[in-house]
């Protein structure tokens, strides 16, 4: 059974149908790319999975459990971590504290107030920062990081939660070529730890990273399959590749 199973998901914003009976599934340890033209519903699908948007109809189950009605905080606790398309680090907190809070987000309020584990967590925070080349920025407020660094910080925050599925919505947007390359390298070691759903416009990048691709167009699944399959898919070539 798939780790994440989205069935017939529909999301309307007033008249606009952003998602139209979308079926979508992700296997354990699969790297799943989500592509499609602007406005095709990629971010909306990601948000519905993470609980930031409520679907109009359809269901989402994770690890055999129906999570359609679960609030975002509970999905995070169940193992879903998201990096939104719009970077949303906590700007006035330090880079360090952004990670520290991410590490503790699944605990109770009491454990946050009374635990004396701050020292133990320190090593974990620094390790996470080092992995994303942010160790020497630890004491700075997240707001003054460059756009690319904020993206890394967000990925680091999401990973700090030890997710079972990581959702990344356009992690390389606004990055230089060099930064993209580094991001790709940073994602490689994740393979052994969790599944990944990644939205990207950079097809070269996504080819390198993903096992499986799903193509959305106007809120519908156009095609889904291995990278080779999608590259040779006539439907996709007609609707998507020629347009982008």
């Amino acid at each position, binding site marked *: 059974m798939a780790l994440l199973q989205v069935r017939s998901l529909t999301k309307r914003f007033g008249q606009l149908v952003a998602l139209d009976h979308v079926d979508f599934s992700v296997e354990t340890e699969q790297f799943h790319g989500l592509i499609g033209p602007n406005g095709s519903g990629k971010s909306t699908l990601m948000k519905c999975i993470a609980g930031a948007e409520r679907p109009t109809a359809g269901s989402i189950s994770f690890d055999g459990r129906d999570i359609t009605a679960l609030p*975002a*905080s509970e999905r995070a606790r169940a193992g879903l971590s998201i990096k939104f398309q719009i970077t949303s680090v*906590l*700007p*006035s907190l330090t880079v360090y504290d952004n990670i520290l809070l991410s590490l503790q*987000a699944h605990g109770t*309020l009491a454990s946050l107030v009374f635990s004396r584990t701050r020292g133990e967590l320190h090593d974990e925070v620094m390790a996470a920062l080092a992995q994303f080349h942010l160790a020497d920025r630890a*004491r700075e407020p997240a707001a003054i990081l460059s756009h690319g660094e904020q993206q890394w910080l967000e990925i680091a925050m999401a990973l700090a939660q030890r997710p079972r599925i990581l959702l990344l919505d356009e992690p390389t947007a606004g990055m230089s070529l060099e930064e993209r390359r580094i991001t790709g390298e940073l994602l490689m070691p994740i393979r052994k730890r969790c599944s990944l759903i990644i939205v990207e416009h950079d097809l070269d990048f996504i080819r390198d990273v993903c096992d499986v691709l799903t193509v959305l167009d106007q809120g519908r699944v156009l095609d889904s399959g291995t990278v080779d399959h999608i590259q040779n898919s006539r439907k996709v070539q007609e609707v998507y590749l020629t347009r982008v």
Partner: protein
Amino acid sequence: MKYPPALSRLSFSWYSENAVATVIFAVLALLPAFLSGYVIYIVPQYLLYGVLAMSLALLWGVAGILSFGQAAFFALGAYAMGLAPHWTSSVDPFYLALLVSLLIGAVLAGVVGYFLFSAGVRDVYFVLVTLALSIMTEQITVSQSDITGGYNGMFIPRAQLSFGGVSLDLSADVPMYYTILPIVIGIYVLLRLVVASRFGKVLVGIRENEDRVLSLGFRTSLYKTAAFALSGAVAGLAGALYGTHASFVSPSLAGVLFSTQVVVWVAIGGRESLLGALLGAVGVAALSNYLTAITPEYWQLVVGIVFVIVIMAFRGGVAGALIRLGSRPPMEPERG
């Protein structure tokens, strides 16, 4: 994006606020040695307004939750101080009233907050409900006139403290001053520690981007409830002390006008800083008091104008402006 003052807020401002606070509290501690009479009588009252303002700064400045209900907790605390002598003959009613005022504030805010925040009530809707809380408290204190004295208010004798054989008569101004000042300092220090704690950081995160904090897995409604309960407890405690200090409480203490004044103090002083809120309350209360004497017709107008000018000139209030002034100019921080 505009350069945020966050860097300064974390390093510069933490230490400099501590330094400024130390100086101010030291001056306050020495004040009765140099002054006597009205100043020594009135300063504790302003400081208790300051505590009320800090209770709002915690909620509004840190967690981004604006409440117009702080006066309700304050008034209930004062009524608890007035009523406590009727409840007990064995325990010292002063201590009992302090405890009860803390509990009333915490429980009322906790219960109201829990239901509102878990239902997803935010922003202006929360403001409206807390405003209603003030109005209801005012109405109840009016209608329960058998207990509260209704519109006429209630006289509260100043407490006589006794601990271990030593007794302290708070009807004199200096003992009252030295009872209230340490409590105010204690509350300030406690709230500073709360803000700097991980709990405080989650509250900052909620202010900046609640959905993000939620998607990290924090049950944000619990954090907001806890912040509101703490704020209610602090406001209640301040109210109890105010009751014994002023020797009087009336329904207007819970009213919309007073609730609004609290918001004005904090906005002028600067909601980003607890000290700013404290001093904002002291400053505006002193100014209002002074103006009532010289121009009884226009003092509210003058305070209103000051409010508009401060808010238009610097949105973060006086403290916010000082923090920005003290922070380093925007520049790329050096690496390494």
